[in-house]
């Protein structure tokens, strides 16, 4: 009785759309079964592997910077002696999290435009004199990674900080008395105890990263299509659905992306141990 509305919504907005997309992906516009023809079509599209490459490059840059910098910053913030200073840093780091989606991209359009940017001297020093130079195709994966890092890193820093706080004082003290320095404590004690959270962050970020859409869409609008409107896989699916009216092709891409997402998240649920499906 308490569960009925949720079951209804799970069926209507979780399972039904997935099944429907699957059906569309294996049929043509008239509903006839066509086997893997739609998949062959979208994968054979010259844009498909270009987009896979774009997204993959973006993911590599983003995940590596996320792993290295978030862990480093969490350790450093945790090392601050004054509670108040540490709290201020955490607040400053996580505030950009309020600006997700279009708002954060718009803000970064300003930052990336040398004529208005608060860091214009830096952009000039890097050789970018105009907005179109800044957003040259070669720079895009790094730019999207920076925007994503700016928005999301703070939340994870706060989470890892919490994990570090859970490490017992005695353990840290014992290590210090044994003569371990800060680096040794970080690599031998703190990192292993944070591993679970780092894995959690990586899996969620990896899955979310494959979905790249808002950033290239807005950048494409803002650059008079210097950035193509089919830069990422989700955009390509969107183009199939809305520009080519090919819902079956769009479904094929959506199903491929969905499989990646489900696989990552299912793997984490079964292997993870972070989330319990039974009462604690």
């Amino acid at each position, binding site marked *: 009785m308490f569960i009925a509305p949720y079951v209804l919504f799970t069926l209507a907005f*979780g399972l039904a759309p997935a099944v429907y997309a699957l059906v569309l992906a294996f049929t043509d516009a008239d509903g006839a079964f066509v086997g893997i023809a739609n998949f062959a079509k979208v994968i054979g599209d010259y844009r498909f592997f270009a987009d896979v490459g774009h997204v993959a490059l973006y993911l590599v840059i983003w995940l590596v910077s996320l792993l290295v910098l978030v862990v480093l910053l969490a350790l450093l913030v945790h090392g601050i002696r004054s509670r108040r200073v540490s709290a201020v840093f955490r607040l400053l780091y996580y505030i950009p999290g309020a600006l997700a989606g279009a708002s954060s991209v718009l803000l970064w359009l300003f930052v990336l435009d040398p004529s208005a940017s608060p860091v214009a001297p830096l952009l000039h020093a890097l050789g970018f004199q105009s907005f179109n130079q800044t957003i040259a195709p070669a720079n895009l994966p790094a730019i999207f990674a920076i925007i994503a890092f700016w928005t999301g890193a703070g939340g994870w820093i706060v989470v890892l900080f919490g994990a570090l706080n859970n490490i017992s004082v005695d353990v840290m003290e014992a290590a210090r008395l044994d003569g371990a320095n800060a680096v040794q404590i970080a690599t031998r004690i703190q990192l292993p105890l944070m591993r679970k959270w780092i894995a959690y962050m990586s899996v969620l970020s990896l899955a979310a990263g494959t979905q790249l859409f808002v950033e290239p869409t807005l950048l494409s609008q803002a650059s008079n299509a210097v950035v193509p409107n089919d830069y990422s896989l989700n955009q390509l699916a969107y183009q199939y659905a809305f520009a080519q009216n090919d819902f079956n092709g769009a479904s094929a891409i*959506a199903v491929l992306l969905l499989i990646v997402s489900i696989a990552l998240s299912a793997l984490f649920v079964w292997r993870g141990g972070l989330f319990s499906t039974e009462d604690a």
Partner: protein
Amino acid sequence: MTTTASTSGSTSAPARRRSTGLGVAGWSGRGIAGVVLVVFALFFVVPIVWVLFAVTKTGGELIRQGPFTVGSFGSFAANWDQLFSFQDGAVYTWFGNSVLYALGALVLTLVISIPAGYALALTEFRGRRVLLVLTLVVMLMPSTALVLPVFLEMNALGLVGTALSVILPFSFYPFGVYLAFIYFSTSIPDSLLAAARLDGANELQVFFRVALPLAAPVVALVGFFSFTQNWNNYFLPFVMLPSSDSYPLQVGLSTLLSSTPAFNPSSAGSESVQLPTLALGTVVSVLPILIVFLFSQRFLVEGMTAGGTKE
């Protein structure tokens, strides 16, 4: 390690502190750490501080003046006027739509997910485990993965373009169910419910009189995440809503962007938007969330680490 430890050993606390590595290497290490912390603080904060200055300038001042100088109240008022008179007050409409979608989904989400979490945690029924695993899997998936499939479904049902086509998918929120599940299974003892049942309360009474009054913290938590996430959502409304009248602010921003000649030279026309006005639009679009965020670091951590308490 020992270079500074020789001066005094009078109390144990300072001695311990010195032994943590405040030698010459320790000091330079601290210095580098401090620089890294400050550089990243600037990285995170400068864009936000800059945009707050930007909205007080005219388009020309924005480009000519230093980035962190204040313009004038007059310019701010002019930007405000330009923003809110854009397309006969479209921004008011978008803001209203954002409120409608985010609040509508918030209410539905709470009505659906709190009882569901309760049932999963404290009652037995067939398929409970399957539902729980499904909830976990969907919760860890990026919500955007289902956007196009949901669009295709809504399109087949003829619901595309309506407010419901946004609110209903927003209200399927497995993460909220999971938060409620964790809360009810860790914070409310079975015996409390059993006692109420012994006293003759029926299942509805047990839920409304016993469990729900104790659930205020998790209601707030689910509400916070549902609201911020839906307010900031771009992809789903972008796909579902064809007309400007029904846009939420996030999607409306892209209309503003297309009307800004600085980023889209072909748009120079009667309705062209100046850069500071676009900046103001950005600020207005995030203001509600920014205010909520400033006071909710604890919420954020509780939500992101939910479930990790079990070692």
